[in-house]
């Protein structure tokens, strides 16, 4: 499997990453270099091998369903590039 320019454009779109047309070609080469290298994983027979889900044998911890944080809207907004009255401002989404 190797990637072409259209694939790179498509995954850049999926990743919400603007990619200059000039860089698409370079990225094709770089990604193909890496994907060729990872092809060696196909040598291994993985039939019946379970996929790793966690390296530690521990059940996911549960806690009481209680509010334990909040009331800090000012702090949350402090790093917002653009905000108004505790709302994040973005370009118009709905016409």
């Amino acid at each position, binding site marked *: *499997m190797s990637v072409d320019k259209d694939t790179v454009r498509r995954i850049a779109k*999926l990743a*919400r990453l603007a990619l200059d047309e000039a860089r698409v070609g370079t990225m094709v080469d770089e990604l193909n270099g890496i994907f060729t290298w990872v092809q060696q*994983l196909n040598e*291994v027979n*993985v039939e019946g091998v379970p996929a790793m889900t966690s390296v530690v044998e521990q059940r996911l911890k549960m806690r009481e369903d209680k509010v334990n944080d909040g009331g800090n809207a000012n702090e*949350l907004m402090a790093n*917002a*590039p653009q905000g108004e009255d505790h709302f994040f401002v973005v370009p*118009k989404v709905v016409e």
Partner: protein
Amino acid sequence: MSLPANLTDFTLSDARDAVLKKKVSSKELTTAFVKAVADARPLNAFVTETPERALEMSIASDIRIAHGQARPLEGLPLAIKDLFCTKGVKTTAGSNILSNFIPPYESTVSQNLWDAGAVLLGKTNMDEFAMGSSNETSRFGPVFNPWRARNSNANLVPGGSSGGSAAAVAANLCLAATGTDTGGSIRQPAAVTGTVGLKPTYGRCSRWGIVAFASSLDQAGPMARTVRDAALLLKYMASVDPRDSTSVDMAVPDYEEGLDFGVKGLRVGIPKEYRIDGAPQEINALWNKGAEWLKAQGAEIVEVSLPHTKYALPTYYIVAPAEASSNLARYDGVRFGHRAKGATDITDLYEKSRAEGFGKEVQRRILIGTYVLSSGYYDAYYARAQKLRTLIARDFTLAFKSCDVLLTPATPGPAFGVGEKTADPVSMYLNDVFTVTVNLAGLPGISVPAGLTANGLPLGLQFIGKAFDEATILRAARAIELAANFHAKPAQWWRAA
């Protein structure tokens, strides 16, 4: 106990003893380190210096000491990798996308250190989002290794991604530092800077408040000048944290306690697959010497096999970018971080903010991760890689039936030149060939300085331990430290004449 010629030459544990016994005040000690940090700016090890905060904290520590209320790390100046969120102090992860980010909260690990009395000197440089093995992907530019080859003025990389922390520890700019390790980012820079770096078992240190790279692999750990210092720092970094669901419910032991028990009767495994083609002769020679040192101290050397070793790096370069592409989806230019100007609509805003905010290596990994998780490719890449990960972890479980720890080289070579490996991503990735297996299996690993190359550059050896058996790898590393008697320091070329 006598004071060292320069206060910055203290080890963490000796400084602790001196401060508690009032041989030196925290303020004197902190002032010396603040000056050392400022004098070492040519190394580019720090991205944010916090001298005022450091002095305030040290004065508060001296008051506590005077009142008999000293805590375990009272008044000891540390450096913190810029991946740990520090409340009110800019935290960038080495990225443009976080260039203005001032966290309103503190990471659990750093909070643990302040609760133990430690002093913040500043935030250290790193590869962007911890993606790199040479500290060359930082938006602040490369860090230079304090070490240079004999009779050379060429700048070398300090390894990565915790390159700033490693350089700061090696150049005596702090008593010790924090790092994070996703594929080798503590152990590899420690090895090439002649310092000690420990990656704990996954779940030992809380990940809360650490900027996420690959969440199933990321783990914080200590970087220090001696094995004892690493043990001491780990004890206060580690905790059980309800805010990290993968933090394991297990009391933190006193890692200093058993350090000098020796290695008599310890079964040390030598994994034959780590003898790789093309590794410099010096690496294998040092590895053999390490085994001999341990044997001379009563350890039993056993050959073991980890048959899936060669698949670890390619597995990592599927799993880590996949998790990164997901974790880095949060950077959208809306809630925090960089926002592009002049976007026409919301998608344009996301795409431009991310393109402007992320550097080349990060973009490359986001694209790899998006691809391997995308419909039609998930099974061929991601699901297969997760199965390989099971096999890699199983190799270790089997090996540990016949040994207590594994001894391996830490890196495939010494520090290399700035710019030498940036053109070829795969050649850069190969730096982590000996360290990355440990992350995939969630095990603890430590890199300890073991000698110098013919050119005068440090090399390290690595111990890998069973899960939550940090105490044994520390004890084994201590045995190497004693045998190697490594006390070399780099010449201070970075200081103005």
